[in-house]
């Protein structure tokens, strides 16, 4: 039940893009076509899941024993950057097909704030290793949901008679704002009603 709660929390209630406003850069940068949006979403989910595990381990087995918890932001960036690089190499060697699908998006999210965000949130929430991993994957899924919805909206917007001043990014920002408003309907009360 706790895991279900984590998933609902990070996909809907605390959606990384639409309620926490983290990871907005790829949200507007890579949402022009649904194909690249799905690729980006998959890459983010993958990295967030892995980063959650790695940063949890670093925090609990390195920083806490050494009494260096205040260095967590710096240490996490180091770990995440190295991890993404390593994963990229492994994928390039072992699975060219997966590399073709994720490859170009992986370096983009090395220092994405959503990835760093989930690592820091996991610590503040006091999650254990499994819960951290679930939060990471759920956060990535929430990101995917938002960016895929957004890309579909933008594909349709391209065909609409939008005024010249609003064409492109401005109308995308307005759509993003309206989507965030819609996501406000997923709140704590909904979570409590669902899970009792």
């Amino acid at each position, binding site marked *: 039940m706790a895991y279900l709660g984590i998933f609902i929390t990070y996909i809907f209630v605390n959606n990384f893009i639409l309620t926490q406003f983290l990871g907005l850069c790829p949200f507007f940068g890579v949402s022009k076509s649904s194909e690249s949006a799905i690729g980006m979403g998959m890459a983010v989910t993958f990295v967030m899941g892995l980063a959650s595990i790695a940063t949890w381990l670093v925090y609990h087995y*390195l920083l806490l024993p050494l009494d260096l918890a205040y260095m967590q932001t710096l240490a996490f960036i*180091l770990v995440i950057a190295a991890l993404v690089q390593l994963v990229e190499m492994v994928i*390039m060697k072992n699975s060219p097909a997966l590399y073709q699908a994720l490859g170009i998006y992986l370096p983009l999210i090395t220092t994405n704030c959503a990835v760093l965000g989930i690592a820091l949130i996991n610590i503040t929430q006091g999650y254990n290793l499994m819960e951290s991993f679930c939060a990471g994957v759920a956060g990535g899924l929430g990101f995917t949901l938002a960016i895929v919805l957004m890309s579909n909206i933008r594909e349709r917007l391209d065909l609409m008679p939008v005024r010249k001043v609003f064409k492109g990014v401005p109308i995308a920002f307005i759509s993003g704002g309206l989507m965030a408003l819609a996501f406000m309907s997923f709140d704590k009360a909904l979570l409590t009603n669902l899970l009792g």
Partner: protein
Amino acid sequence: MIIGIVYAFIVITVMGLLLGLGLALAAKKFAVKKNEIAEKIVAVLPGANCGGCGFPGCAGYADALSQKKAANGLCSPGGAATASAVAGILGIEDSGVGERMVAYVHCHGNHGISSLDYRYDGMEDCNAASLLFKGDNTCKYGCLHLGTCIEVCPVSAISRDGKGNVTVDAKTCIGCKKCVAVCPTKVIHMIPASGSHAIACNNHDAGGKVKKICSVGCIGCKICENKFPASGCKVVDFLSEIDYASPMSQIVDAAEACPVKCIVKH
């Protein structure tokens, strides 16, 4: 206090060094052998990624070239210089490139000159207009003038001239054929860049029908073909076509004699 700072400094530095070292080792272990010949070829290709060669971008063409799956000289933006450079890398004989082909819009009928079936008031896109009775022109072979080809042209070689006709600048055109692919009426064909004249019509209907709907459409009268046999013109399906391989010595006279003046200077 100072001890704490030094401590944090050491830990983070050591961590960074270890991670960097790990990555360096991993890079060695997981190194993927890159196609060196393809990389060399990419360096000499123009990098326009226009797709005119029929491969996905310059890298795709370079890959195919390195595996001998593609013919040399397909890159029209690069032309002869690129072809000889590629031949040098591959160690094959430089066969040169064929005649440089450029796009040409075979229609000079526009909204003042040729008749319309209805008034189109939709999206500024030829393919959208084409969905409605194949466009607003009565002539279903002609240019719709909504500029979809202008949008897709990677080098902005296509523009509207003073009369509202869509024209291709033969000097800028790289021959990528993107406009040919996107045009719903297929009014854009490739012609040699050196060709002095072109037929400004794409209508295959019989003369009487063309005359009613457009004053500059080819009526298939065969004056160019019969009176000026050395002009290279040949009427096929009520439309004159120029054989660019022929000497075209009488083409200027034929253009003069054309009753609708649809043989125009290129």
